[in-house]
């Protein structure tokens, strides 16, 4: 009936976004530095060594595109979840402190020169940092925390991890280590391997499942916490799933790519009107939209021919911030 037409529209939006992700994934695999297309590159390398050409595809292009999907989906999904949970369109995945915790963990690995100690040292440090941030948040705010307490706790953790990260830079043993830290923090998908994809995947899947399980509760939260509670959603459990899930998935994402800004903020914001502002209905489109945006931005960073490649996190913020301003201006015009 009436709800079916709305639901057809909903699946059409998801199908469209999914198509876009597939297209951009293919683009990410196909397009190289300076817009050099894969077949050309492949032929060139294959002249020397055919196995090497396959290796480029498997170990360079595929993990990069796969990480683009995973990280983008994580940022879009958790951004939508936190905006729904906090009933605030300005919330973003970093707000609970897990991403700055992950950044700090990874930076400490660089600082102590452990990055060369193993392929996964940085990632392990990042995930450990995210988990530590979550535990700290729990110890700070307790089990039945109010939303405001949660936000303040997250802000405190973010500020403290940020300060420690700066301290690590400040006291950095060598300019080279400092450089490494700074570049890593700018956020990038280049030079990643399949090992890293397999490493972050379990954390992300668990995180996604936890946050996705809150979809209906987020719909109920449209009417406030009391009403959501009387609609049968245990608020303590809903908050715990949303926060732990976000911490796990975003912590894993940050540990492998560094900080990629604005995706988790802008994507849910942009897609919300398309799903009729339903917080629960926003989750899937937002995950797909996040994946599409990160893949697209990661293609853009490859376009300059000479010089160093612009970092992904820089590009998403460069594109995201003006776009966000545009949204605010439009909102202001609508309410005026």
């Amino acid at each position, binding site marked *: *009936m009436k*709800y079916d037409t709305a639901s057809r529209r909903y699946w059409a939006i998801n199908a469209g976004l999914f198509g876009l992700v597939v297209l951009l994934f293919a683009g990410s695999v196909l397009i190289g530095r300076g817009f050099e297309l894969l077949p050309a590159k492949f032929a060139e390398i294959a002249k020397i060594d055919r196995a090497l050409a396959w290796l480029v595809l498997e170990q360079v292009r595929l993990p990069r595109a796969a990480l683009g999907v995973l990280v983008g989906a994580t940022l879009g999904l958790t951004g939508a979840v936190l905006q729904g949970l906090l009933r605030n369109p300005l919330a973003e995945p970093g707000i609970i402190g897990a991403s700055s915790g992950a950044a700090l963990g990874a930076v400490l690995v660089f600082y102590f020169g452990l990055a060369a100690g193993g392929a996964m040292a940085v990632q392990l440090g990042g995930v450990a940092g995210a988990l530590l941030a979550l535990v700290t948040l729990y110890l700070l705010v307790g089990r039945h925390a109010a939303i405001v307490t949660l936000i303040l706790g997250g802000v405190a953790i973010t500020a403290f991890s940020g300060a420690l990260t700066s301290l690590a830079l400040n006291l950095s043993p060598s300019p080279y280590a400092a450089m490494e830290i700074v570049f890593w923090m700018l956020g990038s998908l280049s030079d990643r391997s399949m090992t890293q994809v397999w490493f972050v995947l379990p954390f992300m899947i668990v995180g996604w499942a936890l946050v996705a399980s809150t979809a209906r509760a987020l719909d109920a939260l449209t009417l406030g916490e009391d009403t959501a509670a009387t*609609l*049968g959603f245990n608020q303590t459990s809903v908050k715990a799933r949303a926060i732990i899930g976000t911490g796990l998935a975003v912590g894993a994402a940050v540990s492998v790519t560094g900080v990629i800004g604005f995706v988790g903020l802008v994507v849910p914001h942009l897609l919300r009107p398309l799903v009729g502002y339903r917080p629960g209905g926003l989750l899937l489109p937002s995950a797909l939209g996040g994946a599409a945006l990160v893949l697209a931005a990661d293609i853009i960073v490859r376009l300059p021919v000479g010089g160093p490649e612009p970092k992904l996190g820089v590009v998403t913020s460069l594109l995201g911030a003006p776009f966000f301003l545009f949204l605010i201006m439009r909102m202001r015009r609508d309410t005026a």
Partner: protein
Amino acid sequence: MTELVLRHLHASLGGARIIHDVSLDIPGPGFIGLVGPNGAGKTTLIRAIASLIPFEGDILLDGIPLSHSISPNHVRNLARRLAYLAQNAESHWPIEVSRLVALGRLPHLEPFRKMREADEKAVERAMELADVARYRGRDVMSLSGGERARVLLARALAVEAPLLLVDEPVASLDPYHQLRIMEVLENYAKNAGRIVVAVLHDLSLAARFCDRLVLLHEGKIRAAGPPDTVLTDENLEDVYRVKVFSGREGETRYIVPLSRTE
């Protein structure tokens, strides 16, 4: 047949005891008005019944005890049998009216399943009852205060729970919309055989629409029963600290405050 029983209920807020030893028996369907001055504990009492705050004593809904710390299954089961409309309820997102009303069906949905036809019918019934069906496609934030109040009420009606708790449903509405909302609540209680408990400040409306009133004063029940036995001049003067003019127009009683007694 729905039955609500409160036995020796105590509830505190921020360390201060708000509800003292309240016992109440609502043996069957009806529209119950909860009246009393500001700070008497009306909202605390209704929130305790909704299991939103911890309490001591017993609350029995159809013989089943409620408690603040309950298992997820119990929460779900309770959510089907008890609907609550908060004071100053509002929607945080500009969602479509029919979608908002449909949120009332969440307790009835199986995990991962969509709304069934029975749920859609319940949403339609609730929208008809609250007379908001014609706004179904509108964004709830574009409606006027009176329209929005009816939409939010329709959301609570859509649960089709045997017990409906509403906290000041007619505050900040004009006289026309006050009557509309009171009629909706009266019909919900009468036609469907359910219990409606409403916190009310307008004593004339309470006297006119409610089957029974409970007058709360300093966290205790001062009087309970049919409106005429509760809203006596003596009770009103004592509890509200005002002298009132009380008159009748046919069946309808009206109560007008004249002066403060202190």
